[in-house]
């Protein structure tokens, strides 16, 4: 069986990352924006793990472990914030939640 070239992993993870970026820019639902951020984090995780496997260096996979730690903590705080915002304004449309804009 042929080894998958490393460039294929780079293309695939770049595609996932760009889909996440477009999701953050295009969508107005705060929950979907949050999910696109998770997609971007996952693409970076997969690319780190791929480089670590192709270069036989465990440091990449350890770093992925810590990125997952930070992502889990960030989801907890982000969803708590979302619930709090929804309780006070009854919307999660980011065009309405623009009080911090100039």
């Amino acid at each position, binding site marked *: 069986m042929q080894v998958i070239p490393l*460039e294929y992993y780079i293309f695939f993870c770049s595609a996932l990352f760009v889909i996440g970026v477009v999701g953050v820019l295009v969508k107005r639902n705060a929950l979907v924006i949050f999910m696109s951020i998770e997609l971007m984090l996952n693409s970076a995780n997969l690319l780190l793990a*791929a480089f670590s496997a192709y270069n036989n260096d465990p440091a990449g996979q350890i770093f992925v472990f810590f990125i997952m730690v930070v992502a889990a903590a960030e989801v907890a705080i982000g969803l708590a914030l979302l619930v709090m915002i929804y309780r006070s304004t009854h919307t999660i449309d980011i065009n309405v939640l623009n009080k911090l804009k100039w």
Partner: protein
Amino acid sequence: MVFSGYLFFILSFIAIYAALKVLLSKSPMHSVLYLTLAFFAIGGHYILLNAQFLAVVHIIVYAGAIMVLFIYTVMLLNLNVAGEFPKSKMAKVASILAGGLLMLTLVGIFRSYDLKVIADPALNQIGLVKTLGKVLFKDYLLPFELSSILFLAAMVGAVMLGKKDIY
């Protein structure tokens, strides 16, 4: 074993299709479910790289905890309203153009770089729990302990943000 040669492309196609449907779905509940499918496909990619520990932790943390939290939020707050937020067409075209240009830039960077590959990823031993555990507890002990403090801070913050009478 003809099937395993195509496994990378099958999993990549499923992941990219699910990621696109996350953005293109009208209902947020469908987006959450498609994202779960994308996470399972990425977990399959980890298994292809023989990163066993990461594959299991990925499924447990992302598909098992984070996506369940999202589903709780959508269902408890009744956020499953469909198609309420139209954005101007110009902004959508501009964002997709920007995304496409970013993708071209990333691909162009990596085309001109000569990647040295040392090992066959399916045969390496560094993804096993035993090897990774030794490295984690020998070289990276301090970040490991600090991450437990990070979790404590996140827990305290999430509970405090969830209280009703915060003022």
